[in-house]
């Protein structure tokens, strides 16, 4: 077993220990449920647990630490950077005309991207709640739920008052005169 394998195993053990000893926070559970409902991938329970675990790891990444890059991979990455430099030098030395054309084209693409970004920034509504408060806490959501309950309680109150008033009016204007008119012939009949 070489050093890379050993370090990878050590990191994995550390991560496993961390996950076994701690559980995702309530906030993470709510966020995970929101994500899962927005874009379900496969099995609901598995998705939910995976997202919760990912959020939990992200939150405690400083404690866990990052996995060291294996030496072989590091060498390969260095080689890519070197070969990029050499090919760029070749282009500068041998293809002056082509570079000029590409440079103009690249410049206009960069300018276009910059303008699009500027338009986006200028038109962004900075006062939108989604910007100022992207992810409300569980306490804030609970407070909102309570506020909504108060609003709907008052709506129910208005509905009850309206219904009771309607019943009273019907009773007063329709029901009572109708009953009187029905009872009168019965009384006359009884007297006779």
């Amino acid at each position, binding site marked *: 077993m070489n050093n890379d394998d050993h370090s990878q195993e050590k990191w994995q053990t550390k991560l496993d220990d961390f996950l076994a000893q701690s559980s995702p926070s309530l906030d993470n559970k*709510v966020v995970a449920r929101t994500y899962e409902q927005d874009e379900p991938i496969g099995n609901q329970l598995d998705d939910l647990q995976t997202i919760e675990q990912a959020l939990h790891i992200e939150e405690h990444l400083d404690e866990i630490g990052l996995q060291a890059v294996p030496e072989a991979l590091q060498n390969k990455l260095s080689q890519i950077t070197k070969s990029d430099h050499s090919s760029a030098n070749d282009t500068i030395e041998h293809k002056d005309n082509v570079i000029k054309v590409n440079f103009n084209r690249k410049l206009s693409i960069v300018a276009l991207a910059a303008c699009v970004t500027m338009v986006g920034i200028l038109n962004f509504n900075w006062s939108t709640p989604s910007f100022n408060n992207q992810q409300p806490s569980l306490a804030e959501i609970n407070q*909102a739920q309570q506020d909504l309950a*108060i609003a709907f309680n008052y709506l129910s109150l208005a509905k009850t008052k309206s219904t009771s008033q309607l019943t009273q009016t019907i009773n007063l204007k329709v029901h009572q005169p109708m009953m009187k008119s029905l009872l009168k012939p019965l009384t006359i009949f009884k007297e006779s």
Partner: protein
Amino acid sequence: MKNFLLTLFILLSLSPAIQAKEISEERGYVSFDNLEADYGEPKVMINLNQSMLGFVSKLSASDPEVSELISKLKAVRVQIYSMNNDDKPALDLMTKVAKDIKNKNWMPIVTINEKKEKVRIFTKLTGEIMDGLVVMIINEENDKKEAVFINIIGEIDPEKINKVTDALQIDTGL
């Protein structure tokens, strides 16, 4: 270069349409004047926007019908004032709002004019869908006077109001 300028022009001309619509521009929105000068700070002041209602809707996912109803709301605004003996400012506001929204084709569905109880309920209809509701109550009960102004923006089914209240299952002390 010509293409670049053309693209930029199209982006600039389309950008206002891309912006989020302000809540005050919604069909179901009604503005209530502030009565703080007459009655002090409101007893209850609620302003719930669409994103917060979205989160509440997710929390109520156990009842799909209630969750769907809440998710269709765009805003819920409530102002409740405890009144002193002078109910004129609240009555004036009720009359003003009722007059304004009648001119904007809101439909009055309930009007109660009792001595101790005045209620106005208006709805804004788009076809057969109700996308705005205004409830104004001036109420006196056990020597307690209060003025209630509620504006619900978004699609709402009045038949399901009680269902939502029951589903939220919170003791609001009302």
